[in-house]
């Protein structure tokens, strides 16, 4: 396929939505952090720009590459994901009580983020290779184990947020793989039982699966009267930030952000910065970009050349939707506090590059799908 055809088959709407989100993100990181480093307002935004650039380069490579090639490496990729996460426990420095990174000198490599991409690619291949066994309980259970193993490792870092993202990715892949509804319902029931056990029953029996702070954060959105100086503080400040934005935002008067009342303002709570600075209008504009993005991802699932591409595209759409819901919901006080970043907006290289890799995958799926469509059409004509 030559460049011209490649460009023609590219999903331009998806690309524009992605670039729009990236622009929005860099501007927001700038707005959130311009006062954080005295004398260097671009400190964080510039780094975010670099990550976006690197991510876009990787995206282009993946878009051009036929994703079929990744399929051959599925076991190597899966093994790499597990090994790199495990390596964090050995090499990772403890930051705020958890080990999530491997310092590479120029870059802090975060395997759990990369694992999202890798597991998407590997697990979709794993499933599609076993299409004939789709309706068997055995395959569903094995697939669950397949995804829960890396998720559990990430959970032990501990990084509850990313662990749930990996879990949800697995569910999304199963869903688009076409797993029997009965299986899906059983999994949903099991998730609810486990959640209740972990949050309520086991602590009463004296077995703490989660740390106290994790339970506090998970339950804080249910109890709005929590002490403003503790777990509820972040959520309360985020809600004040969003609420005070009003319709058109506070612009340069965004004191919640500028005076640092809003914690994690360029990472987990960046949506609150959007809400405060640009108000309802800005937030809705952002939602429109995301909606566009999700539409194209789901469209790629239907256009895909083959089952493999379709399942991956569906899984990617699921993962993005989940992250949007949890991150924005957290800033709006309707979701638990988990450290899940807002795709393309939250500051952070690992998530940025991973997300753009997923976009590259979507583009690849779109390009191949469109190509196959055309080919089939010609074949049919001939």
């Amino acid at each position, binding site marked *: 396929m030559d460049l011209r055809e490649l460009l023609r088959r590219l999903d331009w709407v998806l690309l524009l939505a992605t670039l729009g989100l990236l622009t929005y993100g860099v501007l927001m990181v700038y707005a959130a952090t311009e006062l954080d480093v005295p004398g260097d307002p671009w400190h964080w935004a510039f780094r975010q720009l670099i990550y976006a650039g690197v991510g876009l380069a990787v995206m282009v490579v993946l878009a051009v590459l036929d994703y079929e090639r990744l399929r051959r490496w599925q076991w190597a990729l899966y093994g790499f994901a597990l090994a790199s996460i495990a390596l964090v426990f050995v090499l990772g420095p403890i930051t705020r009580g958890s080990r999530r990174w491997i310092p590479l000198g120029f870059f802090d490599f975060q395997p759990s983020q990369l694992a999202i991409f890798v597991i998407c690619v590997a697990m979709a291949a794993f499933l599609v290779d076993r299409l004939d066994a789709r309706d068997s309980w055995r395959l569903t259970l094995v697939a669950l184990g397949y995804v829960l193993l890396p998720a559990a490792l990430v959970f032990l870092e501990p990084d509850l947020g990313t662990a749930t993202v990996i879990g949800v990715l697995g569910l999304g892949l199963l*869903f688009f793989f076409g797993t029997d509804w009965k299986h899906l319902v059983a999994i949903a029931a099991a998730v609810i039982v486990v959640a209740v056990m972990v949050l309520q029953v086991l602590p009463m029996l004296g077995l703490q699966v989660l740390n106290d702070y994790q339970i506090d954060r998970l339950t804080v959105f249910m109890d709005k009267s929590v002490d403003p100086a503790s777990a509820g503080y972040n959520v309360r400040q985020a*809600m004040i930030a969003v609420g005070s934005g009003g319709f058109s935002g506070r612009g340069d008067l965004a*004191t919640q952000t500028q005076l640092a009342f809003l914690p994690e303002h360029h990472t987990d709570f960046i949506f609150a910065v959007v809400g405060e600075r640009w108000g309802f209008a800005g937030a809705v504009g952002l939602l429109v970009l995301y909606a566009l993005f999700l539409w194209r991802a*789901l469209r790629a699932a*239907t256009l895909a050349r083959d089952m493999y591409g379709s399942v991956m595209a*569906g899984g990617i759409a*699921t993962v993005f939707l989940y992250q949007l819901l949890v991150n924005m*919901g957290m800033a*709006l006080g309707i979701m638990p506090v988990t450290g899940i970043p807002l795709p393309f907006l939250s500051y952070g290289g690992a998530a940025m590059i991973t997300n753009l890799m997923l976009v590259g995958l979507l583009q690849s799926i779109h390009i191949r799908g469109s190509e196959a469509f055309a*080919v089939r059409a010609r074949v049919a004509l001939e």
Partner: protein
Amino acid sequence: MSRRRGRWQHGAGLPTSSPLLGRKDSAFRVQRLGRRDRPVTELPSVGRRVLILAGVAVLVFSVLLFRLWFLQILSGQQYVAAANDNRLRSVKLEARRGLIMDREGKILVTNKPSLVVGIRPMDVPQDDLAGVIVELSSVLRMPPGEVLARALRSMEIPTERLADLVAEVARGSGEATGAVLKAALPSVYVAEEDRADVTAQLSETLSVSEEKVAGWVEKAVHKRTGYAYDLAIIKKGISKRLAIDLRERAPSLPGVEVRKGFERGYPQGTLAAHLLGTVGQITAEQLEEDTWRRRRSGDVIGQGGVEYTYDEWLRGTDGTAKVEVDSLGRPKKTVPGGELPQTGDSLVLTIDQRIQKAAEQALVRALEQAHREDFWSANGGAAVVMDAANGEIIALASYPTFEPGVWSGGISDEEHDKYFTASANKPFFDRAIQASYPAASTFKVVDAIAALESGVITPYTTFPCEGDFTTHGLTWKCWVHPDGHGRLDLTGAIAQSCDVYFYNIGLAFYGRKGTELADWSRRLGLGKKTGIDVPGEIEGLVPTPEWRRERFADSSDPTDVLWKPGNSVNLAIGQGDLGVTPLQMAVTYAAIANGGQIVTPHAGLRVVDASGQTVQELRAPEPRRSGASQQSIKVVQAALRQAAASPVGTSVGVFGGYPVAVCGKTGTGEVFGKDDYAWYASFAPQQPAEGEKQYVVVVLIEEGGHGGSTAAPAARLIYDALFDLQSGDFSGAPTD
């Protein structure tokens, strides 16, 4: 489909190779893949599942949109207010206190700029706080416990953290853990319900006995008013050199700030220190008191003297500044909307600083005289100068004295030693109103009026004095004249201070039962507070049979509860259980001078604003009638004049030939185990001309020996100042 085809044909004039190649390649792959995978189009379930996820996405976006609309559009205003609550903080701007002046307008207390050291505990990295406190305490030469206390003022702090801090500070400074804890606890907030737990935990962690800790925890603050981002004042009034030193050490002292402020200045030094009082931060106990219910922790209030009494006038109105702060409470900028502080009104006192100075010097001179006469223990005294007609205090002196500014910003070790060693003799103790002494012979005027009014004697009743007096098997001597005064009437007995005459009166009162002498004592102003507008006054004591019964109810000797003849006889010469303050004595003598009116002593004259306009006249209650007849008063007046002027009078050596008609009585109080206490109670002139003022002067010298030789000459120095006289050397009359 046709659109795609059209494009292909349009496609850049490469109709042969590329699409063909692509097609071949792709056709091959579709075939090849067919074995392993199936095209999406053959799987109808994918479309349905995509629709389902799209539906979920629509739902999620609807929820987010609704929530955004709810927060931003519906409740936006409320959150704007919350954001402003977050960022805007009112900072108290302390008003300057008003000035304090004497009656002539001479400034006694002013405000002077000073440098203040404070610490913002929030800005100190947690691990460094103990180190900062230790270093600060050594730089400021304050006990480390004290610095810790000030840094933690009414802050809520987790118990483990407090224990750690105390332990680290103690370790770092070499101070005992208990001492640091004891100093720190009174300024830490501990909720009432937590006190038992906190005590147990502190005592265990720091291994200090639980009993002790419990006592200290009792003193902890009950109301949380301090916050970690407030600047906690550690010391006020530091020197420039120290400020520079602190700036140089800034790297090792994070969170420590030096800033400009004001503190009380005393242009007259120690003058009238007891009367003026001090200012200082409100204490934990005071915060509980009703008087101070409008004050907050950290407020500076009058801590004694007229600063205390007239605090409401002097303190002014604190202002506020609206400051924008960041999430750590650090001020970023001032925003409009604050209120300027209003300086307090000034207080004009009835004091005349010239007379006050004279009175204080007179005490010093009297003590020097006492030392010359080998009364080496003499080391304290008091003097009262009062307008006899209305109770205005012209001077109120107590020795030893202190620097009134000493408490502002913490007392240093040297100052502490200077003021609290035994030889310092309690300089903060106001002997004019807080100490009670045996009235001794000065009490005889009370005897005289009581006896005259009760009909025990007439002015012409005489008793013989042979140098001693025996009744009920006990003998008392006439202390002044052991050989006997011979037969004396009342005037002679007062003038010559004959004890035997008054023993007879005491015995007569004993015979009449009842409490006539005690009643007259109280009517003349003894045994109860005078009502002066200076805090801390004591009541003194006028003993009665009833008091004896209560006082000795638990005594092992059952006869203690009985009022015996000796009690009456002792009371008659102002000894025994009788206790009076110099100020009470001044009120009694004022009543004799002014014809029997009991005045309320007061030091506040009026309150004036910055331009000197009177805001409020400070009127003391109108004088009350004591009930003594003019006739009795006149007799006593004349006798007192004789005492000072007649050739046999007890203070003739001091006031004989004095240009002003002084009426005065010496007194020599006996205190078990101590040298005699010297009194001189007097007033002058005897008959003030129209428009002329009549002054009462009372001097007491602790362990100064004879009243005539130390107290009376001191009084004369004061009269010299009052009447602009120069009456020569300090000399006394060795009689009493």
